């Protein structure tokens, strides 16, 4: 995903230089060569001077780097979807507010794009009662490992004014994703979506997140991965169901998107980084659901092929 994000940044007219940093010199060099002239080898430096920092490394590596760059007054964008990372990054809010910079948390496909869709859908309601996120598919190998791990442990949902922990892998629900994925069984999982979306919708009653999985995924979740993950996942999707009230009547709006998760996540992270530098994202630590201009954000992503869809006429 990091390589995809670097390519998106290089292709943006308002980006002068992209420093690629990674402990693995061979991977770093490969990304620099594949990305283009604006990309340069930043070594394994963790404190390189830059206008903003996009963290796309393995889960668990984001918090210390984010704190380091935040201390230097740089906007930070993190793609981690680990509950532990997300909670720790959100805890940087006070410092980010004090330094007047944005720390964007969970800026990938889902969470990330899904948060923007939720924000966009919420604009249609007078009051939002429930937000339910579901996702299918994985990005790169790290994302596949995270998918595998998230089916163990406990899911974190917001329900009726409090946090509720339930076993991951439970709560099967059939979710209808954009074609050609269609219907897939989705289960509770260790996903950070509720942590990211609950602060955005003050009066929301329920925020849940589910992950598409097969029975084999659930059965093998407690075991080591039986085979090496694909270099990059196939097509994936996200689905955002918002329930609320408008003009006194209850309504449901379902938005979604279909793409290769690594490509979409890279584009979302890159755009969030550019918007953070441009001051178009609120200061403080938050998810992309806090965005104040969801439509222009979605428009810019549509221009690079990541398009939202609405489910219509269902019963």
């Amino acid at each position, binding site marked *: 995903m990091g390589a995809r994000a670097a390519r998106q940044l290089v292709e943006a007219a308002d980006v002068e230089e992209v420093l690629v940093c990674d402990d693995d010199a061979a991977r770093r060099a490969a990304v620099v060569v594949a990305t283009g002239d604006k990309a340069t080898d930043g070594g394994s430096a963790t404190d390189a001077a830059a206008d903003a920092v996009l963290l796309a490394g393995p889960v668990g590596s984001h918090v210390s780097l984010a704190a380091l760059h935040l201390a230097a007054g740089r906007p930070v964008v993190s793609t981690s979807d680990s509950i532990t990372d997300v909670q720790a990054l959100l805890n940087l809010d006070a410092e980010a507010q004090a330094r007047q910079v944005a720390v964007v948390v969970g800026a990938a496909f889902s969470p990330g794009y899904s948060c923007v869709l939720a924000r*966009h859908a919420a604009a249609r309601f007078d009051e939002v009662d429930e937000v339910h996120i579901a996702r299918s598919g994985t990005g790169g190998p790290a994302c596949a490992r995270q998918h595998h791990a998230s089916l163990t442990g406990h899911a974190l949902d917001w329900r009726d004014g409090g946090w509720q922990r339930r076993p991951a892998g*439970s*709560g*099967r*629900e*059939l*979710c*209808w994703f*954009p*074609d050609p994925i269609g*219907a897939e*069984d989705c*289960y509770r999982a260790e996903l950070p979506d509720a942590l990211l979306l609950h602060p955005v919708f003050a009066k929301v009653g329920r925020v849940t997140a589910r992950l598409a999985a097969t*029975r084999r995924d*659930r*059965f093998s979740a407690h075991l080591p991965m039986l085979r090496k993950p694909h270099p990059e996942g196939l097509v994936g999707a996200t689905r955002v169901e918002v329930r609320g009230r408008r003009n006194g009547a209850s309504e449901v709006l379902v*938005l*979604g998107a279909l793409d290769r998760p690594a490509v979409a996540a890279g584009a979302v992270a890159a755009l969030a980084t550019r918007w953070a530098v441009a001051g178009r994202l609120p200061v403080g630590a938050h998810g992309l659901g806090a965005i104040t201009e969801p*439509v222009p954000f*979605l*428009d810019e992503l*549509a221009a690079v092929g990541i*398009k*939202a*869809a*609405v*489910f*219509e*006429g*269902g*019963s």
Partner: protein
Amino acid sequence: MAMFRRALVALGVAGVIAAVLRLRGSGGTPPQQGGWRELSGPDLE
């Protein structure tokens, strides 16, 4: 013989686990009509 019994036990346990996984959860009903429509330009407003 012991090996055969162990294999039978393993198959039985696997069958029980498969049945539990198969039956657990309520699933849902897929939409009977409607479909996805791509949003772009003014549709997003």
